[in-house]
């Protein structure tokens, strides 16, 4: 049961072969059995999950129309606000924070009758690429428990890969969905900026953050995208574009598909096994009738640098509100105003968060702003222009999602720069505001998953999912599950 996809679980219920309660129980049992090792979850409320499942079963019995995700257990990254439930961002700062509101995507999931099974572990405030920056626990990669699951949405990726949830939601600011999806052998999408409302998503970098689903396969991803996408007047940056019926068009062959391959994605630092798998996937596409075309993204070499200025600048402001004054962690004892601020923040934030706040504060400071922040904005525009130009001659751009398969726990924690480089292929997608997806495309000799990244123009998710599905239909990587106790 727990290895099934969301679509399969929905079908089982429709045929009367399983109840939502039974499905939820199976996943809760899986969490009990496996999460002691995997450590994907930050918070699970079994009673609440069962209650939701029972309500779905009752609704079905009553003959009422059911939502698109009826009875499907879903895990939520702990950066998304859930009304009445802890939402910590895996930070000490928000240890006791219980939002009085649901994020827009949570409202949509509830309306779709999904069963919210728990909140997942993450890099603190979504800052990191390994989930080792959580203030609470270190999530393991279900394919090798000595390795990281990727990050920052590592908990959400591991939960799905370990079959502790049928699907999950993550957020992606520079690769935080696609990279862990790649490292955990599942499907993860970073929608176009503005496709999904950010209301209730605790901001890291507002101009880059997007919510997206993790699933076992592309079909499930399309299904979740239908549920979470759409305009929300509470988010001024959410775009009022109709949401296509992604699941309906998924299996339509993409005629005359041209795949752009950027030479910049096959340079130094790329693991040979990853390179081989991705090239094999491209060959598979050729077999399916696609044309491969080399494109150039000349400014992509600046993407990591630009990202660590833009994202940290926004973060330094977004995280200013955690000051111990109105909510969140406050330093004990009586201090004057400035000491209350600095002690509360020094105690509440982990090292990486502090590092990024300092970087961002510096980049915006007078005397440095022109050279860093404003320059970065200009280069960001050039990166976007690169993609616009590339998409004039191809439908999608493909390449590896991450330069290496999952690395060992602790391997890069002492070297932030090498950690930052694990997002080298995913970051420019956020800077350009386009769509990107990672799908499984093989395994290393040691059995670690490898991901293929497909990037598409803004609001071309429909085509991107079709293209992803084309490959998936011809391969069976997505059917593999890790062996766990």
């Amino acid at each position: 049961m727990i290895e099934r996809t969301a679509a399969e679980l929905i079908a089982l219920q429709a045929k009367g072969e399983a109840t939502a309660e039974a499905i939820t129980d199976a996943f809760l049992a899986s969490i009990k059995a496996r999460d002691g090792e995997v450590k994907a979850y930050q918070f699970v409320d079994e009673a609440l999950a069962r209650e939701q499942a029972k309500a779905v079963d009752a609704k079905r019995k009553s003959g009422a129309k059911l939502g698109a995700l009826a009875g499907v257990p879903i895990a939520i990254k702990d950066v998304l606000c859930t009304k009445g439930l802890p939402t910590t961002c895996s930070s000490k700062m928000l240890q006791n924070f219980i939002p009085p509101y649901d994020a827009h995507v949570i409202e949509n999931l509830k309306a779709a009758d999904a069963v919210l099974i728990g909140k997942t572990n993450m890099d603190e405030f979504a800052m990191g690429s390994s989930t080792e920056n959580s203030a609470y626990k270190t999530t393991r990669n279900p394919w090798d428990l000595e390795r990281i699951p990727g990050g920052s949405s590592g908990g959400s990726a591991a939960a799905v890969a370990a079959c502790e949830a049928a699907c999950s939601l993550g957020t992606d600011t520079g690769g935080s969905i696609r990279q862990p999806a790649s490292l955990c052998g599942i499907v993860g999408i970073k929608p176009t900026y503005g496709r999904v409302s950010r209301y209730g998503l605790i901001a890291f970098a507002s101009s880059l953050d997007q919510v997206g689903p993790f699933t076992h396969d592309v079909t499930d991803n399309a299904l979740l995208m239908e549920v979470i996408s759409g305009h929300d007047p509470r988010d001024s940056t959410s775009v009022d574009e109709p949401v296509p019926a992604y699941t309906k068009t998924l299996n339509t062959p993409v005629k005359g598909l041209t795949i752009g391959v950027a030479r910049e994605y096959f340079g130094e630092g790329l693991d040979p096994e990853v390179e081989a798998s991705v090239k094999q996937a491209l060959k598979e596409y050729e077999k399916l009738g696609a044309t491969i075309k080399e494109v150039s993204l000349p400014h992509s070499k600046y993407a990591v640098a630009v990202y660590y200025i833009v994202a940290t600048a926004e973060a330094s402001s977004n995280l200013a509100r955690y000051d111990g004054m109105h909510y969140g962690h406050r330093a004990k004892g009586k201090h004057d105003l400035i000491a209350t601020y600095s002690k509360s923040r020094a105690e509440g934030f982990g090292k990486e968060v502090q590092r990024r706040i300092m970087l961002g504060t510096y980049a915006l400071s007078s005397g440095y702003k022109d050279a860093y922040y404003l320059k970065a904005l200009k280069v960001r525009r050039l990166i976007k222009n690169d993609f616009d130009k590339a998409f004039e001659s191809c439908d999608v751009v493909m390449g590896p999602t991450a330069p290496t398969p999952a690395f060992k726990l602790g391997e890069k924690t002492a070297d932030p720069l090498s950690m930052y480089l694990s997002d080298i292929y995913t970051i420019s997608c956020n800077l350009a505001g386009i769509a990107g997806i990672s799908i499984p495309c093989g395994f290393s000799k040691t059995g670690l998953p490898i991901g293929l990244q497909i990037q598409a123009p803004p609001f071309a998710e429909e085509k991107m999912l079709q293209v992803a599905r084309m490959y998936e239909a011809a391969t069976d990587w997505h059917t593999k599950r890790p062996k766990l106790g």
Partner: protein
Amino acid sequence: MSLPYKIVVGLEVHVQLLTNTKLFCGCSTKFGSPPNSQVCPVCIGMPGTLPVMNRKAFDLALRAALALNCSIAEFTKWDRKNYYYPDLPKNYQISQYDLPFSYEGFLEINAAADPKKEYTPKRIGLFRAHLEEDAGKNTHDESGRGADSKVDLNRTGTPLLEIVSKPEINSPEEAKAYLEEIRLMLREIGVSDCEMQEGSLRCDANVNIHIEHEGGIAATPLVEVKNLNSITSVGRAIAYEAERQYKEFKKDPVNYRFGNMFKTTAGWNDVKGITVIQRHKENASDYRYFPEPDLVPVVVTPSEVQAAKMAMGELPSEQRKRLQSAPFNLTQYDSQVLTAKGRRMVTYYEEVTAVIGDGKQVINRMSDLVMGALNDRKEEIDQFPLSSQTFADFMKKTASITQQGRRDVFNHMLEKGTDAATSIKELGIQTDFDESKLLQAVLEAIAANGPAVEDYKKGKTAAANRIKGHVMKTAKGAPNDVVQRLLEAELAKLMGT
């Protein structure tokens, strides 16, 4: 009084816009509610919440900017101004930095030495007017007992329009005139109620002085005076601060110069009547402005500008000009006084004049009777029991009776709620005087006051009043101006003989 220096002042005015809801959320902006009763997750900056612009606030700001003769940017964006303070829950304020929605305007004020007598127009240039969100309010234990400070976030997120003048204000009087004109105008066009007491109009003054010194002009360092709670205190503070700077300059004319030190902030102590230097901005605040990523830029179309112009209606400056021309023909001073009373008072005046015709006479009667009564009764014109039509009828019916008689009728009407005719009747005032009978009374009075006539003939014109007094005694309630005219004519005849 001539000063040995020239005062140079730029004013930064903040006005709260008259919206029902805040700038980026749906909370009420009502003044005076219990602390923290008008807040929501958005305005207190809870994690994951996002601002959404209140279009009504933007439209009001647009209207104000147009009234201030500002150019309107076709494209404007929001910026974050980053600083930590407990009344600012996000620790940044959403404001406008390098692309304000309006810029380069001016406001005309009366800069005459005696503004009651004359009108000397002066244009005060404006750098910009931009929109931003207000902060909350901190209250501290000022008893010194060290109780907890408190934060009230009701005000947080209220839309504020910041109007920044150029340093073109050159006296306390001009500063006051500028603020009075802004207040009148923004009230008239419905943008703000501009209550300084409630904080819906706030003002900081950047003051320095220029002194003729050793053949050149010496400028003193800039001081920003805050905590100005009334228009009167703005004037007092500027005068005090200018004089203080002059004394400082006298002490050290070499070093006490503009550019030699950072801008200083001073607080105005209204009780002591002094400015208190608070801090030197040596570690000048770095607000780390950057574009607000949670909001989209605002594009202003010509039709929106047109709509704002339509909504603006007549501006006080336009109204004064109109009142000075036919059919009203008011003096500069009268037009200023009337306009300052507000649009509803002007409408009342216009309605009365439409009936009476003589605008000058109407303003005199209104100043004499209506405005005084409103003062006594503590009423606004739209609460006043006598409608413009009733007052016009009163003016007609009492055209030919004495000033005292008119006043009695007016008061009687107010007291009893009667119309003019009834009041005249109830008071037993005679209004239909026969001019030939009045002439008879005049001739009798001349005959009965030989000595006074003799005095008059000798050039003591005041003696005529004694004769007139006699007439008024015999013809009670006779119209003063008619009696005067008849008496003057008869006395002239005597002089001629």
